[in-house]
């Protein structure tokens, strides 16, 4: 396959996928190397933005995904109003933030930071698949450990956890 054809195939592949696609999957489909595939995806990315198109390719949860440009949201909301989901609650975001930065983390650890019982919020986040149980902590009671999921990264449009800004704790005493 020549290069232009391969790029067209990648465009079609990303268009069809509902989930972020990893470069090695693209590479395998095109029988090329991951490095080559990544290069072509980046080229496509630039072409779409240079031409001012309505679609964009962005990195999410360790792969690439095609989506619409943010500035078009007002039009799209009108057309697909019934599909717009509600935002997460403040409590849910607090718990997610704690899990994201402290993972793997137990419920007690989360509650001691928030000062509020959080089982209900955790259950809801589990249901939404934004967090998952990774195992149990060794020690008394062997409490469950929570970690964030790929869906978490996808939901917030994050490439990986490293993209989160550093936690700003002013340390007056010792941490």
């Amino acid at each position, binding site marked *: 396959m020549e290069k232009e054809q391969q790029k067209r195939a990648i465009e079609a592949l990303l*268009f*069809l*996928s*509902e989930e972020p696609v990893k470069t090695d999957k693209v590479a395998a489909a095109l029988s090329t190397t991951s490095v080559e595939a990544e290069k072509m995806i980046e080229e496509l990315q630039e072409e779409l933005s240079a031409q001012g198109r309505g679609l*964009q390719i*962005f990195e999410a949860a360790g792969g690439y*995904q*095609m*989506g*619409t*440009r*943010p*500035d*078009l*949201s007002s039009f*799209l909301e009108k057309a*697909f109003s019934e*599909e*717009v989901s509600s*935002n*997460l609650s*403040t*409590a849910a*975001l*607090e718990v*997610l*933030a*704690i899990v*994201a*930065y402290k993972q793997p983390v137990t419920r007690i650890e989360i509650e*001691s*930071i*928030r*000062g*509020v*019982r959080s089982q209900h919020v955790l259950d809801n986040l589990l249901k939404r698949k934004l967090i998952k149980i990774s195992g149990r902590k060794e020690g008394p009671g062997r409490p469950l450990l929570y970690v964030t999921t790929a869906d978490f990264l996808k*939901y*917030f*449009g*994050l490439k990986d956890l490293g993209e*989160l*800004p550093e*936690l*700003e*704790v*002013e*340390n*007056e*005493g010792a941490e």
Partner: protein
Amino acid sequence: MVEQAEYKIKLPTFEGPFDLLFHLIKKAEVDIWQVSIADITEQYLAYLQSMKELNLEIASEFLVMAATLLRLKSKLLLPRSPKFQEQDEEEELFEINTAEELFQRLEEYRAFKKAALHLRQKEEEQKKVFLRSTGGQKIMVFTQQESVYTIWEGAHHLSEIMQRFAKIAAQREYVPAFSAVEDFVIARKADYIYAVLRQKRRSVPMKDFVIESSLWEVIITFIALLEMSRQRKVNLLQDRPFEPILVSLIEKQPELFQPEEGESGERTAKESY
């Protein structure tokens, strides 16, 4: 004071005692580390008081924090007896024994609150990006009968069925879904289905096995059929969702299930007693 309740005071809601404390500190425009425990305790209690006057339910965490604050305040006021110091510290929700510890905890909470705010921003940004959702139309599911459903259809119909059941169930008196007689009833239903199929020697629609046509019985029949299908005793066939489910007997495979043929239903029933 009592009359205050007459006014319509709108109280902001807080995620918890730390959230409230944090709000009070921000209002006082002081740094967390410069907070006067006495002042903050007073304000905190005042807030709880106004909640009480508005007849709002106060979560226990707020009260525990109030007690913690009062204890911290009393510690600062009273001369310490070195002998009993730190002796009576019990394990509690907050485990805060000094003002420094409180500040530290507040500081930590503040950091996560900020991180949560950042997530909120990312959420808003991401909300503006619409992703393709084919509803699984490209992914076909091939059943044994080679009828083709899309995943989307399956999920859609399942949710429709659930909604229907919920509606019917809501209209009826509550029937406990699981009871001790369940196994027994299912086994009896399975025996009945078996007898009918043997007699008719052709496929029979599922609804023919439902005699009283109560929701309860439909469920029992369905579960019995699933169980029989699992034991490879019957074949279940349905062309499309909501079409009749046709039940037919699977011809005997001697060595496979002859020994438990016919009796299995009754046996399970007895075992569960």
